[in-house]
């Protein structure tokens, strides 16, 4: 009897040892597989937008493409429809170290641009789509050095941190096509900083504060660089952002200031963007202001927008020689549909309303209506 009990105990003991051994082996194998999986993940790098290069592994590739179709018509503008522009933007960025990174963007365009856009009969032509043109330009290219947690110093060229729109020059990010008139009005801000750009961001209590200081060159007088600055504030969740911007540069042997104030509010499904910019000169002050409310009418993929945009371009010259100081309203609206987060399809309508003395020149009415159909894709 005792033998039988001993045999059973021995058998059970052996089974327990074998089970423990097997569990150990299985645990080891699971750990090995998990490590292999992790290694594969490291090889995949931080984001699927990153590619391997010969120089450095952390190279980020991205960009956008936007073809658009524009229809125009007016009292003295013949109805026309054209594939007005096709713009490809390529972004390349690389982290060389934890503190040093390189950011670049260049744009390549193929377009049938609108000629004599303000329909000035003194120019000798009408407002119409011109022949095919193409070109490329560098919009960003800078080295960014991180001095502290949030303090940065950049050197090169980049979008000027002046208000809201100039910081969103990529067409796919604008709510309406081409963005507001602030970007198209002569004698206003320099859209790019060049040289140095120093910026910082501070979290104070429940608020975010930030500032930018940068140099730039005005195309009219590139011999002496100008100086730009911006101070901004946002609520903790950045639903409310407001800022004050200034650019100061020598122009026609005098120092001029261009001043701007901007506001962006995002509350539930409602977004409001408003900006004001004025060029302070002794005789004539070109200025522009717009307000752009928009509302997500279906979840986050269907945005309905409207806008009122005014510009006084007191120093505008047709063909660079004929003085044409105009005042113009642009108002309209449209629909942005984002079937995927990377794709935007837009249908927009804009009424271009010239006012005051320059509404009609030599019997020619300058007003017109434009309709835009465009697709934007970011990658």
């Amino acid at each position, binding site marked *: 009897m005792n033998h039988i009990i001993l045999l059973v105990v021995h058998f059970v003991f052996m089974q327990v040892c074998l089970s423990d051994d097997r569990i150990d082996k299985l645990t080891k194998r699971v750990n090995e597989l*998990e490590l292999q*999986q*992790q290694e594969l*993940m*490291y090889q*995949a*790098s*931080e*984001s699927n*937008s*990153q590619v391997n290069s010969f120089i450095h592994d952390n190279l*980020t590739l*991205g*960009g*956008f493409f936007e073809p658009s179709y524009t229809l125009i018509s007016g009292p003295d503008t013949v109805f026309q429809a054209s594939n007005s522009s096709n713009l490809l*933007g390529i*972004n*390349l*960025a*690389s982290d060389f170290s*934890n503190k040093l*990174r*390189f*950011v*670049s*963007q260049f744009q390549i365009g193929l377009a049938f641009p609108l000629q004599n856009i303000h329909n000035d009969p003194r120019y000798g032509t009408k407002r119409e789509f011109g022949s095919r043109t193409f070109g490329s330009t560098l919009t960003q290219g800078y080295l960014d050095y*991180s001095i*502290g*947690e*949030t303090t940065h110093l950049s050197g090169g060229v980049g*979008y000027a941190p002046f208000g809201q729109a100039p*910081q*969103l020059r*990529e067409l*796919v*990010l604008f709510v309406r096509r081409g963005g507001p008139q602030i970007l198209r009005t002569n004698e206003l801000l320099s859209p790019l900083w060049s040289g140095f750009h120093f910026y910082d*961001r501070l*979290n104070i209590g*429940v608020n975010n504060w930030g500032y930018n200081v940068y140099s730039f060159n005005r195309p009219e007088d590139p011999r002496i660089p100008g100086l730009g600055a911006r101070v901004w504030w946002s609520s*903790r*969740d*950045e*639903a409310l952002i407001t800022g004050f911007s200034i650019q100061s540069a020598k122009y026609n042997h005098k120092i001029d200031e261009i001043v701007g104030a901007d506001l962006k509010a995002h509350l539930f499904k409602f977004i409001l963007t408003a900006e004001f910019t004025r060029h302070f000169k002794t005789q004539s002050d070109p200025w522009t202001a717009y307000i752009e409310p928009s509302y997500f009418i279906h*979840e*986050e*993929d269907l945005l309905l927008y409207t806008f009122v945009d005014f510009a006084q371009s007191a120093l505008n010259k047709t063909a660079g020689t004929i003085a044409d100081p105009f005042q113009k309203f642009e108002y309209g609206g449209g629909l942005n549909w984002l079937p995927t*987060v*990377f794709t935007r399809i837009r249908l927009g309508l804009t009424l271009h309303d010239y006012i005051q003395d320059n509404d009609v020149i030599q019997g020619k009415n300058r007003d017109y209506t434009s309709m835009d159909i465009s697709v934007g894709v*970011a990658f």
Partner: protein
Amino acid sequence: MKPLIIFFLLSFSPLIAQDVVIIVNEQNPITEITRDQIRNFFLKNVRQWPSGTPVRFFDMSDTREERRYFLRQYVKKTPREVDLYWIGQKLYSGNSAPLQISSDAMIAGVVSRFPGAIGYVSSAFTEAPGVKKISIKKD
């Protein structure tokens, strides 16, 4: 009264279940973090820990319900707003979104590999070698 409490608890149990825990590499000296810090690390507004160690944020896969909860509670954005934010960032400043990882174990695994790593896992997560849970400090 008792049925009311049970009803209340049952009604909110899905929300409780979606709660997340913030984890960092065990070498990181911090023991607590504010929601603002988490948000700034996630959005890459701040890229270094106070010690100077670079921050490496690991996100949860967008198929996980906990991610929606995390974005709402800590980042104050919807998943779509976050996607659009990263498109803008990539075009404007070259920043790209944090890597998304599907399982808690994998998140803990990668966080344990990098000294400056931070991530979040579901509240059901217990512990893993090389990582530690940190508490949320009031802003």
